[in-house]
């Protein structure tokens, strides 16, 4: 696929927009359809597309397997961390009211943070799964 100029250009041009859209879906998830799960999948889709066009090696140089693998774990950690942070501030586990002075702001912050955890996990999981399958296929052939 090295010679496909149109594909390579299109992929290169689209990738940043896909990434920004993914972030938009996350941060605007409070107001419009979207949220952590969708954003994580969209971010992963950008890298999957890039590795389909440019090859796995090129993408793994920018985004190595150990990194996305740690992302999968880090996201769960962030989620649980928010829960424990709320506990440390005197509320129940995952009770976001205590995270800011005003309960409503605390809810906003808490939702954003746990959704960020979901984004990181889902992104890490989807990309890792793709890397692993693609890597297997490459080594076999």
């Amino acid at each position, binding site marked *: 696929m090295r010679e496909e100029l149109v594909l390579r250009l299109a992929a290169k041009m689209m990738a940043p927009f896909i990434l920004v859209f993914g972030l938009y879906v996350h941060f605007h998830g409070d*107001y419009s359809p979207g949220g952590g799960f969708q954003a994580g999948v969209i971010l992963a889709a950008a890298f999957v597309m890039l590795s389909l066009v440019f090859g796995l090696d090129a993408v793994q140089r920018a985004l190595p397997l150990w990194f996305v*693998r740690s992302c999968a*774990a880090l996201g769960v950690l962030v989620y649980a961390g928010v829960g424990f942070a709320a506990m440390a501030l005197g509320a129940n586990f995952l009770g976001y009211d205590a995270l800011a002075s005003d309960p409503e702001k605390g809810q906003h912050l808490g939702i954003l943070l746990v959704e960020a955890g979901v984004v990181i996990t889902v992104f890490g999981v989807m990309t890792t799964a793709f890397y692993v399958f693609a890597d297997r296929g490459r080594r076999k052939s």
Partner: protein
Amino acid sequence: MLAAAGIGLAKLRNLFTVVMLAGVYSLLSAGLFTVMDAVDVAFTEAAVGAGISTVLFLAALVLVGHREKKPVRAPVLPLVVVIVTGAALAWGMIDLPPFGDPDNPVHHHVADHYLQESGHEIGVPNVVTAVLASYRGYDTMGEATVVFTAVVGVLLLLGRGAQGRRTGPEAGTGLSEPEAGEGGP
């Protein structure tokens, strides 16, 4: 149309075509979810079902080959089982409350509370997000953990460490067996 795509999936024997058709099927069901007001779900289905899962299936097909063997015997017994189960389900369906009626019991347990009170309690316009991350935060944490566990499984099965240390210098990405399983809940 969805049903036609589903039956096509059952009939075709070239697995490559089947996987592509499964992607189309996912996209169709995403459209159906939009029609039924579940925009968040449609979004997820379009991104996950039509995008990532198709790619994963294709990647797996590269590894296992894409021809399905012709079934050796006529599938009479499965057909009978399916028809009987379908009839039982249809019998159960008769008793379900009518489609789209606002007085259905599902709409009056906690849904009212979510719709009316989440404005004061959470202050987030998208109720789906509010319920997902706040009211049912425990559930979502469990889901994140499940997804994480799934990838730990995939890594253990297919990661470079799964073939033992014989790969030697090739495993230079820092991936080794104990590390891949670390942190499992």
